[in-house]
């Protein structure tokens, strides 16, 4: 699943720049982002404010005014995203790209049953009968490891734990079989054990369905365990691209700093190395 299929890539981004107005003129929060990916697992890692979430939003056409997105190339499975109008974006979202956000408490509609929310994308994008939609929603809930899909189907979001909510969210995003799934900090609101379960589930589903996945997180070791390639972002710019299995080869001082500052039993009684930030990291190499 690591190499892109011969021919056109799933996602092809070049020169993506996102700016917002500020008193000192337009401020670039993402600068010259480039990524060509097939049906593989890409990790985007960075601290808060690194521009990793805005990058994902711009691929989904979700950057709102007064933000402005420009790019030399922005193509998803052959479709030129730069030429899309509002209805084009709507047709794309859910159908071709799904997005999972940090906290299911905020991304699920609190007054709608889980089953209805999963069927929503099917209603929007496909001509399906009611019974077919229900059958697919239930199958999807089973696929995300819910033991009693019927009960989950009727449940409201507030009745679910964080882990269950995130499973429901994944089900809602995958039910219409998108080609690309973007997960923005999907596990940072969960405790470690549930995080592990959700990650395994994502891993299995992505492999089974042959999806492309962009996993966004501040947790470098977690992303490294999960992805094939890692893009490390710092203040809006990709400072390093890594093979996830060769994390120790990281050359950029920022990446090395992120790895070195992690606590463990081995660092007991010692001070942790902290990042000495260098203004040069913000300038293109």
């Amino acid at each position, binding site marked *: 699943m690591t190499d892109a299929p011969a021919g056109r890539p799933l996602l092809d981004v070049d020169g993506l720049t996102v700016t917002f107005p500020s008193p000192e003129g337009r401020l670039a929060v993402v600068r010259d982002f480039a990524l060509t990916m097939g049906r593989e697992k890409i990790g985007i890692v960075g*601290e808060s404010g690194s521009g990793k979430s805005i990058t994902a939003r711009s691929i989904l056409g979700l950057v709102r005014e007064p933000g402005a997105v420009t790019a030399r190339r922005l193509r998803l499975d052959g479709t030129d995203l730069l030429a899309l109008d509002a209805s084009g974006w709507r047709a794309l979202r859910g159908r071709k790209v799904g997005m999972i956000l940090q906290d299911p408490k905020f991304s699920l509609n609190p007054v709608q049953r889980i089953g209805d929310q999963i069927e929503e994308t099917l209603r929007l994008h496909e001509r399906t009968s009611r019974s077919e939609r229900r059958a697919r929603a239930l199958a999807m809930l089973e696929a995300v490891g819910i033991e009693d899909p019927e009960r989950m189907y009727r449940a409201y979001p507030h009745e679910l734990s964080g882990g269950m909510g995130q499973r429901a969210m994944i089900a809602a995003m995958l039910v219409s079989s998108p080609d690309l799934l973007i997960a923005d900090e999907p596990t940072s609101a969960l405790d470690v*054990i549930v995080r592990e379960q959700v990650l395994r589930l994502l891993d299995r589903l992505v492999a089974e369905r042959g999806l492309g996945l962009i996993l966004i997180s501040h947790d470098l*070791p977690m992303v490294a365990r999960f992805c094939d390639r890692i893009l490390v972002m710092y203040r809006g710019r990709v400072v390093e691209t890594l093979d996830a299995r060769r994390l120790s080869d990281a050359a950029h001082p920022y990446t090395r*700093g*992120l790895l070195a*500052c992690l*606590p463990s*039993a081995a660092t007991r009684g010692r001070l*942790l190395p902290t990042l000495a930030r260098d203004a040069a990291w913000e300038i293109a190499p």
Partner: protein
Amino acid sequence: MTAQTPGTAPTVAVADLDVFYGEGRKRFHAVRGASLAVAGRETFGLVGGSGSGKSTLLRVLAGLWNSWQGTVTVAGTALTPERAPPRAFHRRVQMVFQDPYASLNPRHTVDRILSDGLELHGFADVDRRIRDGLDQVGLGPRFRFRYPHELSGGQRQRVAIARAVALEPEVLLLDEPTSALDASVQAEILNLLAAIRRERPVTCVFVSHDLAVVAHLCDRIAVMQRGAIVEHLGVEDLVADRVRHAYTRELLAASAGGLAPLADAP
């Protein structure tokens, strides 16, 4: 490692603690029969998943939750259920909260946030203590008259720590103080906590769901699951893999997963 010195009473002692939320039929049993003892100057870790009752237990120790049964002694004060502890108790026992975006009043300057507690407990030379406190947490005087929204997450957590430490407490309760922060900022805050511990004799209870952080900081650990303490262990047991309870194993596998690829994990 700091086993209790015989003869001295533990600084934090909890026996057969049950904690409840709500009333009547909706009453929720958040902590079930928990017992633990933390010696003076020790750093004790309380680990568990969400809903394990670890934060609830910490709130009881802080005197912020009164609906419980059992015996709780903190910094020489025996707490009484259904009754708020005396004001002086709070001078000796301070807490740092999880979310630095929520634990500072958005309408108060850093100066006000720090001076409130100092004035309340009748400290003299409040002005000097605020300046020293800001220096100690690595912020310095220029942050004194800023509002929380003018600070980053790490800076806010430094202010919250300064607020707690300013009262020179005997016991410092830490509720996942780094889980909302980036890794590099987490390292800075953990270093700050280590520096504070070196400077003054303070007993810490550190709550987290991340065994890696707890192993870095703590001497002994209690693991909580669904309101009960399922295992007590020393950090050296953790390192040497002398873990008995299945839930602790699971926690260990998930948090110290380290660099093992997911596919190779059991």
